[in-house]
């Protein structure tokens, strides 16, 4: 089985989400060819994650319609029966177009390897799993960020230049506003997240949240009421109508754990809940719990992590 993996890059190197896509395809038993656009240092790291070859398009593309044409042409040129992309911002816009172009069935945000023609994904905001059958000749799959580790250690991949017909652009990027200046990992890709809710009583108290996050090299998040009241920016809101995350560690302080909030975080590997109310629903969804005041517990926790060295 041959797989074409779309490999997003930054500064010439594959992004973590891109490496996860390549590594996933390798775990499915495929011979993996990666497609990279724009500046690329050597193979961009694709070989180490399991790609045998990189098709390199010299110019970068902004319009996902054009990226989808490049991916589809590459898949056809390689005779790939599987196309994998990360289920992130770009992948969500590229992969559905590729599926249409290749007449392929698509399964988004998978959480397991493709076995035969069946693959597993989470549905109902993580409250159930679905085993989905793909009966088309070509199968398009997007990988949930941070659901699969990246197995490194493969040999450097051969790089071939590739010049697909991508047509006219229908979309252009005219600006970018960074959500944070501290360089922390964006929430959907974060491995550790420290989150807080109304229990913090006001935006001026977020220092203790940020301090713990910095100490843990974690990204900060918040509950919906907190973003609705303007205490924290919208992009930090995790939950049903905000962002869905899947970190290794999710620490929630002063959040009761309403079902709408849990829907966005219940796929975290380990959940720690800190709340003054011993009856808070979050304790039913958490792995570890502390009944206590966030104003006292968070600074002590920060100290304890620092003492780990």
């Amino acid at each position: 089985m041959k797989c074409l993996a779309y490999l997003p890059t930054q500064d010439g190197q594959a992004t973590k989400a891109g490496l996860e896509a390549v590594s996933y395809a390798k775990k499915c038993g495929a011979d993996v060819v990666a497609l990279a656009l724009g500046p690329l240092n050597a193979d961009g790291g694709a070989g180490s994650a399991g790609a045998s070859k990189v098709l390199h398009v010299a110019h970068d593309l902004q319009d996902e319609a054009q990226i989808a044409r490049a991916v589809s042409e590459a898949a056809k040129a390689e005779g790939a029966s599987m196309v994998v992309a990360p289920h992130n911002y770009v992948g969500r816009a590229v992969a559905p177009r590729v599926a249409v172009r290749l007449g392929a069935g698509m399964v988004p945000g998978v959480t397991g390897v493709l076995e035969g023609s069946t693959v597993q994904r989470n549905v109902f905001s993580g409250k159930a799993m679905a085993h989905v059958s793909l009966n088309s000749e070509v199968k398009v799959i997007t990988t949930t960020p941070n659901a699969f580790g990246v197995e490194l250690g493969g040999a450097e991949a051969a790089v071939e230049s590739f010049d697909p017909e991508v047509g006219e652009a229908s979309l252009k990027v005219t600006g970018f506003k960074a959500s944070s200046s501290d360089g922390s990992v964006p929430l959907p890709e974060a491995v550790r997240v420290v989150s807080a809710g109304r229990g913090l009583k006001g935006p001026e108290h977020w220092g203790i949240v940020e301090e713990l996050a910095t100490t843990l090299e974690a990204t900060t998040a918040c509950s919906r009421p907190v973003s609705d009241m303007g205490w924290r920016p919208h992009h930090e809101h995790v939950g049903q109508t905000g962002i869905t995350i899947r970190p290794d560690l999710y620490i929630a302080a002063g959040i009761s754990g309403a079902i709408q909030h849990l829907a966005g975080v219940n796929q975290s590997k380990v959940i720690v809940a800190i709340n003054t109310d011993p009856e808070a629903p979050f304790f039913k969804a958490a792995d570890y719990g502390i009944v206590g005041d966030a104003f006292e517990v968070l600074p002590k926790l920060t100290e304890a992590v620092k003492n780990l060295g």
Partner: protein
Amino acid sequence: MKILVCISKAPDTTSRIAFTEGDTQFDKNGVQFIVNPYDEWYALVRALELKEAQGGSVTTITVGEADCDPVIRKALAIGADDAVRIDANPTDALQVASLIADHAGDGGYDLVLCGKETIDHNGSVVGGMLAELMNASFVSLATSLEVEGGVVKATREAAGGLESVEASMPAVVSAAKGMAEQRIPNMRGIMAARTKPLNVVPAGDALQGATVAKFELPPAKGECKMISADQPEELVRLLREEAKIL
């Protein structure tokens, strides 16, 4: 401006999740269905705001069976002019997108809006497929949307921040939080919705890509281990030695 808004029904967030028929079907028994929040709060309301500012019409489209009609009436009560329901049981994104594209293809729509995902299947796929099938531009995960001089100007979620983009029309836009504020239908809207057109059309041939073979409930969560508030170092030790994530 002619705007089409894709509306799905979804089980209310607090619904008990269970399956029937050998775990192949969602158990609708006792489940309250709502308009998928991303479709209602963001896509539909922004469409109405654009119509109010610039004129035109807002039509909703749904792929579903007759049990969708109550949520379609809700969308009409909020302010859509008319509704189309393609009479088919939605089972796959490619099927849904191809049915909508077949119907909308010759409808002369300038803009097609959909929520960024449904809260049951969480796929985030139909919008992109629709754009490809309709040969339209696609703005995914948009947090704001304007139309000026025949060009879509939007901001969208991107890695590490928000991107401003411009896209040609016709355009498909998937709506994320921030695009609009939820509107509660008033009594006048609810009354008017009863007589607004809800056109049920038979489903033509659809593409089919993937089918759910089986649903499964996740294993029950173990007990939450409680740690005294005076001993955060014990939590840190457990995270390192037991959970092995520090």
